[in-house]
């Protein structure tokens, strides 16, 4: 048996784990691995900033359902990954980050480009580990993949010292199987809780399902649909749950929460039973907990035991993988005619027409909602949309209707500006045959726009729509509502994005009127290369409805009718 270096073992392990793409940036402490990587059948994507590598791995994971892998050197390379790791942690996205580290004998000596990256990332990783011997490289990596993808997924960081990469040892794949600590086996199935849940499900008159990301993670779409239709349950979606249940289904109410539809939030407040599936009662979906769904009993289907009763006290907790739990529940679910309740909820929708900006006459103004709605129609809702964070993200959730799982990729929990462009690159590598659209604001786009160079270098076809309003729009909106329109630090100068794209060798176009939107989208879709569209939209538009932070879910700020007048100004 010939000996292999730790670096060679690392690459061999990645190949055997089925890794085909790796997003990274080289540097001194990871150089031995890059040298070995040059001989491995893995496509390395050179990013322009290590934060981009983590978002790409994240986008790759969310688009594919697999594990995304990012690589960086020690010190600044590793610390640049922190934001992307935290993003993956908050949204339960399985990524493995591999960082180089100074040689083990230098650890703790403040050597060049040394940082304690495992210490830094301890609270924002599912697990992390320092590997300081070549013999431990393969097992640690294999364990990292298992940990990242199992249960509630999350990021794992593997920090490999330079000497571990350089030294050689014998390598037998069979001897490096994961050997994770033997945990207590918890019997998730609890008949008492199930019986309670079944009783509630079969007697509720005004139930609402709260559908979250967990449905997508556990691939429970089919059984979930059957569950919904058997019980005739109206379904409210979390932001990260969008796509888990077709938007076109009559029982799909749309998104709940801070910028959820008014009828959804009102239905939740009226409900006598909430069935939470793979969601965690985040403050952005509950509003004030003291007034949240007071009339409702609650069932919580959740894989992570620590989420039970964390924010909202529940009447039945069904711990486990969403698909497994739903499969157990389904046979005990009795068909129930809830047409009266469903009709009532649909009636709540009635007053929403005033909110619907689509019904406004074209007065020469361009609204973000127009752009996103047109994009939805032109792509027939079939594109993978990767959004950044802010107003455009909420408009996307309201005006782009997702029928397919894993068709919306967005930073929900951490709300990471700069996420969209790199995450879209990752998504494109995961699903090269699918149409990928970036929707980003002019603020967030400027945070990671250096990755345009990555797009060019990799010859990718990603469509980019910038919703450009000259403000950090969501923050401006908060200033408008809660700080008496004192716009401190939110007016924002941006480059001419179309010219910028051209400088990178990418097609770019500026769109200023509503009539130009559809032709521009069509032209962009006709070519098989990246196109950037800079939509100059209404500067001071706001996302409605809005539940102010800490307010009750039914205390929504609605679209003022005066806006109709505003839009009719010349």
């Amino acid at each position, binding site marked *: 048996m010939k000996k292999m270096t730790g670096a060679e073992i690392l690459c061999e392990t990645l190949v055997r*784990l*089925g*890794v*085909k*793409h790796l997003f990274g940036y080289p540097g001194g402490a990871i150089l031995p691995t890059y040298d070995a990587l040059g001989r491995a059948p893995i496509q390395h994507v050179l990013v322009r900033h290590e934060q981009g590598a983590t978002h790409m791995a994240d986008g*790759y*994971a969310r688009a*594919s*359902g*697999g*594990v*995304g892998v990012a690589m960086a050197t020690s010190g600044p390379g590793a610390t640049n990954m922190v934001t992307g790791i935290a993003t993956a942690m908050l949204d339960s996205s399985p990524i493995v980050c591999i960082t180089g580290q100074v040689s083990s004998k230098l650890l703790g000596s403040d050597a060049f480009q040394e940082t304690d990256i*495992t*210490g830094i990332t*301890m*609270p924002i990783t*599912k*697990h992390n580990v320092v590997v300081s011997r070549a013999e431990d490289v393969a097992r640690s990596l*294999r364990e990292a*993949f*298992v*940990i*990242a*993808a*199992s*249960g*509630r997924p999350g990021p794992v960081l593997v920090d490999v010292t330079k000497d571990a990469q350089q030294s050689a040892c014998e390598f037998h794949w069979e001897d490096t*199987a*994961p050997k*994770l*600590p*033997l*945990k*207590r*086996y918890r019997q998730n199935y609890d008949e008492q809780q199930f019986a309670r849940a079944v009783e509630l499900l079969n007697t509720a008159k005004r139930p609402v399902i709260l559908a979250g990301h967990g449905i997508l993670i556990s691939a429970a779409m089919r059984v979930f649909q059957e569950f919904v239709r058997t019980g005739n349950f109206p379904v409210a979606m979390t932001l990260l749950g969008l796509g888990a249940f077709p938007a076109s289904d009559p029982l799909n109410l749309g998104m709940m929460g801070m910028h959820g539809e008014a009828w959804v939030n009102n239905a939740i407040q009226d409900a006598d039973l909430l069935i939470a599936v793979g969601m965690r009662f985040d403050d952005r979906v509950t509003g004030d907990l003291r007034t949240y769904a007071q009339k409702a009993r609650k069932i919580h289907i959740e894989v*992570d*035991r*620590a989420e*039970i*009763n*964390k924010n909202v006290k529940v009447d039945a907790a069904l711990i486990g993988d969403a698909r497994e739990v739903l499969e157990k529940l389904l046979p005990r679910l009795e068909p129930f005619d809830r047409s009266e309740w469903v009709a009532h909820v649909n009636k709540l929708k009635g007053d929403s027409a005033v909110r619907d900006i689509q019904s406004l006459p074209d007065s020469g103004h361009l609204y973000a909602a127009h752009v996103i709605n047109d994009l939805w129609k032109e792509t027939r809702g079939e594109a993978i949309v990767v959004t950044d964070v802010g107003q455009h993200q909420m408009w996307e959730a309201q005006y782009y209707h997702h029928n397919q799982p894993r068709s919306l990729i967005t930073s929900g929990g951490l709300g990471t500006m700069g996420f969209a462009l790199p995450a879209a690159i990752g998504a494109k590598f*995961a699903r090269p045959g699918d149409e990928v659209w970036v929707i980003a604001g002019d603020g967030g786009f400027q945070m990671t726009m250096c990755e345009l160079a990555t797009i060019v270098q990799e010859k990718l076809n990603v469509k980019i729509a910038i919703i450009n309003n000259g403000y950090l729009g969501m923050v401006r909106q908060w200033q408008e509502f809660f700080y008496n329109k004192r716009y401190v630090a939110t007016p924002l100068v941006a480059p001419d994005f179309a010219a910028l794209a051209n400088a990178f060798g990418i097609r770019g176009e500026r769109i200023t009127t509503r009539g130009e939107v559809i032709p521009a989208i069509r032209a962009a879709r006709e070519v098989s290369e990246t196109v950037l569209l800079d939509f100059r939209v209404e500067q001071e538009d706001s996302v409605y409805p809005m539940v102010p932070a800490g307010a009750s879910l039914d205390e929504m700020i609605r679209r003022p009718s005066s806006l109709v007048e505003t839009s009719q100004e010349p």
Partner: protein
Amino acid sequence: MQTVVAYVENKPGVLNRVASLVRRLAFNIDSLTVGPTDNPEIARMTIVVHTDKQGAHRVEASLEKLVDVLLAENISGRAAVVRDLALIKVAADQQSRPHLMELIKVFRARVVDVSPESLILEVSGTVDKIDGLLEVLRPFGVLEIARTGSVAMTRGSDLLRPPAANESPHLEAVGSKAG
């Protein structure tokens, strides 16, 4: 105050992970003790946390999510023996010494060091008992205190053992879906 018992991997950094997690939940650790078990690869912790029952659930459930924590359980409210050990150096001259010895007997403390001006007492018991002893010693002049923090064990057949090899499925059963 809630008492959580945990079995953890006996390796570097695990104490940091446990302490960091409780810190992240914004609970104050009243005491945390770690010691080896009969298996050199496994250590046992007793963590006393300033929180309510709800908070303790979050602590135990979040702790068990850490890869290196094998088991974590809130034993507050269960029949259990909870003990602290304290070493107390108390001023003792010719005059006060006989009086002190009386008190020591009542509290079943032991004198483990004698010097012309002071004694070191060793006492174990509940936190309340040790607090009580300190209270009565204070007038004599308490010079130094070293307390271990609580160790706890549930009574009788209520066993808290680290998971055994035959106890079954675990992470390894889940295949990775590498892309």
